[in-house]
């Protein structure tokens, strides 16, 4: 989210101004209440990258956790105690979201306005061809289950499952490679203005890949379950 509006928060204690991504008032050094704040990345002092080193993220999380910890504000004013709780809780949300590459991507898509945020927007559709394929494979899976229940020989139903798995497994591998390539490209483009055509194209492609992910994974999980039962 790039914004040209100067983003400032105001210290409720001394009335001084501070940039949104600092946690303590530069004037009076008191913990700032969580009024106006940046996104999870800004909160943790990170750029909007998809490839983040886990160790670096954890280091930042631990450092900030220590700074905000409510135990250190035990004797402080009510406002400071509340601020420490607010910042601790927001930090936990930020860390939980950014730690997992999938929720991290989802979060980037969301703050860039590309992910469904509620039921009203939930109807963004994956490509029809993928839905057709997933539906057909689900039907095949159903038929294999029926055949198995009806007493089909082991190698018969296993063979059918293997044949069903191959195309979707190939798709998953290709999908994974595309996501990685797009993520790397995004990381070089993230700092460009939001209107930049290349940046938007990569974001759009990431959004489309993201829509496809659960269909592919669910289907593979279903096949896997059937094979191991």
């Amino acid at each position, binding site marked *: 989210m790039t914004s040209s509006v100067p983003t400032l928060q105001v210290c409720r204690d001394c009335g001084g101004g501070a940039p949104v991504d600092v946690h303590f008032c530069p004037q009076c050094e008191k913990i700032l209440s969580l009024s106006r704040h940046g996104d999870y990345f800004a909160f943790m002092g990170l750029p909007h990258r998809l490839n983040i080193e886990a160790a670096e993220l954890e280091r930042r999380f631990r450092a900030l956790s220590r700074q905000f910890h409510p135990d250190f504000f035990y004797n402080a004013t009510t406002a400071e105690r509340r601020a420490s709780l607010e910042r601790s809780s927001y930090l936990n949300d930020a860390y939980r979201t950014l730690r997992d590459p999938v929720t991290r991507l989802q979060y980037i898509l969301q703050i860039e306005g590309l992910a*469904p945020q509620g*039921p*009203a927007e*939930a*109807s*963004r*559709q*994956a490509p*029809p061809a993928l*839905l*057709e394929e*997933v*539906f057909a494979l*689900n*039907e095949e899976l159903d038929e294999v289950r029926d055949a198995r229940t009806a007493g089909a020989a082991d190698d018969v139903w296993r063979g059918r499952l293997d044949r069903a798995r191959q195309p979707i497994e190939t798709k998953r591998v290709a999908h994974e490679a595309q996501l990685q390539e797009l993520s790397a490209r995004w990381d070089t483009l993230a700092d460009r203005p939001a209107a930049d055509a290349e940046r938007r194209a990569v974001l759009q492609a990431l959004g489309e890949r*993201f*829509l*496809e*992910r*659960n*269909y*592919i*994974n*669910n*289907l593979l999980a279903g096949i896997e379950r059937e094979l191991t039962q």
Partner: protein
Amino acid sequence: MAYSDKVIDHYENPRNVGSMPKDDVNVGTGLVGAPECGDVMKLQVKVNPLTGIIDDAKFKTFGCGSAIASSSLATEWLKGKTVDEALAIKNTDIVAELSLPPVKIHCSVLAEDAIKAAIGDYKKKQAAEGKTAEKVAQPTA
């Protein structure tokens, strides 16, 4: 979270599971998916060409109980309705009937999308059929 009795009933005894020939000009097919959970839902309507009323509706859903119940209920409601009445079915009606909790509202949205897609497909086929009928009719006129 507990499913309501109505969801469980539709899940255990789904109405109108199955499929109708996709190529039938009186059959509209909608195939939609929910990217959040990977559910896929196919819903079909068969419209009586003489009365314009939906004679039959079928569905097949691969997904959670709420998605199955939402589409099962939708097929029950569709039968006996005109195409325009069918389009008036809102996901909120499904939510109310099945007492779906907020996290399952997207299942009802999916069912509404499936109805719209099926009717859209039917209308498209009818329009195409009208054109070919005209073409066939012209030489004999």
